[in-house]
């Protein structure tokens, strides 16, 4: 028995967009959002930015953000917007993290009728599509804790 030259490809996870979040080691893990933190006044931002709005510092550090937060507000999209890879109906939420940043995201593993302002949610990995090489294009969503 010999190994074939073309081994069965192991499926790779690839982020849908680089620099926005860090993939976990395995598909069972949770992603980590990457924002910015001001080295001068400790303000946090998401998405990343270059200049601190609070103190004017030019040059912000990359910061890993909390993986849990609360729903600040939400809506249920009933019509799929142009270009969306997610089909309606789905819940859109603004999640507030302890760092006082607001994450605009989609909810998953949730009863749409049960979504409420104030709900505790945590980040989770979401497979969006396969790319042309058969890798899984991954993104993040949030789900009830």
């Amino acid at each position, binding site marked *: 028995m010999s190994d074939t030259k073309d081994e069965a490809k192991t499926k790779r996870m690839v982020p849908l967009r680089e620099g926005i979040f860090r993939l976990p080691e395995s598909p069972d893990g949770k992603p980590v959002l990457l924002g910015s933190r001001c080295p001068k006044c400790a303000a946090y931002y998401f998405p990343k930015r270059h200049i601190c709005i609070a103190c004017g510092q030019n040059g912000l550090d990359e910061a890993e953000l909390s993986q849990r937060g609360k729903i600040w507000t939400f809506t249920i999209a009933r019509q799929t917007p142009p270009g969306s890879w997610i089909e309606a109906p789905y819940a*859109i939420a603004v999640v507030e993290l302890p760092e006082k940043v607001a994450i605009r995201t989609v909810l998953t593993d949730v009863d749409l009728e049960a979504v409420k302002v104030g709900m505790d949610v945590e980040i989770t990995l979401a497979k969006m599509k396969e790319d042309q090489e058969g890798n899984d294009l991954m993104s993040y969503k949030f789900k009830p804790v």
Partner: protein
Amino acid sequence: MGDNGTKVVVLGVGLHPFGRFPEKSVADLGRTAALEAMKDAGVDYKDIQAGYCGRVVASSGVGLSIFEELGSTGIPVTNVELACASSSRAAELAANAIKAGVHDVCMVVGVEKMPRGMLPLGLGAGGEVSFVGAMGLALLPGEYALQAQRHMALYGSRPEHFAQVSVKSHKNGCLNPYAQYQVPLTLEEVMNSRMVADPLTLYQCCPTSDGASAVILCSEERARRYTTRPVYLVTSMGATPIYTPGEVNLSEGPTAWLAQRVYEKAGMGPEDVDVAQCHDAFTPGEVLTVEKLGFCKEGEGGVFVWEGNTEITGKKPMNTDGGLLSRGHPMGATGGAMITEIVRQLRGEAGPRQVANAKVGMIHNAGIGGIQVSILST
């Protein structure tokens, strides 16, 4: 306007009806509105010293293509873009030029031709999908729905409070021959229409539209040649969102903060406003804005609308011509249409839509990119 002594008058207003006009070009729409405004003002094209064109989608040269329809006098023409507030911002720029003594008479034409359906905010210029778009987050009704849900959670406002805005809007639209929709809707019809983004149903979303508006502004001194009862653009100011650490911001700009500055500049308060226009692209636009303009307390906007205070006969008549919801929303034209209705109200020319004794009007216009708030008075 006012602080260096030169007052600005809105001398003439005009519209092309809002709706679907596939056979008409942007130039056709603009020409029609401009001719109506010039006739209203009593001026000829040769009297116009500068042109401004508010538009969103149409590209370079559109302003010239419209003004060239009217004549060829060599005046400077400037295209102005602030999404749905383009012609409001253009009016401020024209007024500032008049105040500075650069021009005496300016015309602002707002125009748009739009395809049907949702604005493809998640797609780039070449049709490529952005990250936000792919993730289903580029949903414009969603932005207003997010605000409505927060308002309901914090203040106990109800879905029918928002829906009532559309009922009132369509009732007013029936009285406006230029409106895209001149059909009344009941509360049940509004609430039972297809849900787009909870709690917003289809009839709580403004349509896409074709249309044009034109506004002629001039100095107070010049206005004396044409009218003994001028309507003044007292002040018009713009703003972009202000970052406040720890606060979540979902709206196009800091409306309450800007309104306060506009009131101060005008030497007035919310109690002085007799008639108003606000950006009701989606019904929460009116519920939230009446609070931010100081017409009622924070959190009470839903009840304020529900109890009829923004009807033509109410305490603070809002969008008496049907607003974006039923007048329509050709994005670049809307600012000028807001000015047009306020001017007609202040002149006593609003016919069946007339608010009794209207002397002071206020306008709130929002767009992706900023907001504009103005006060007009007799």
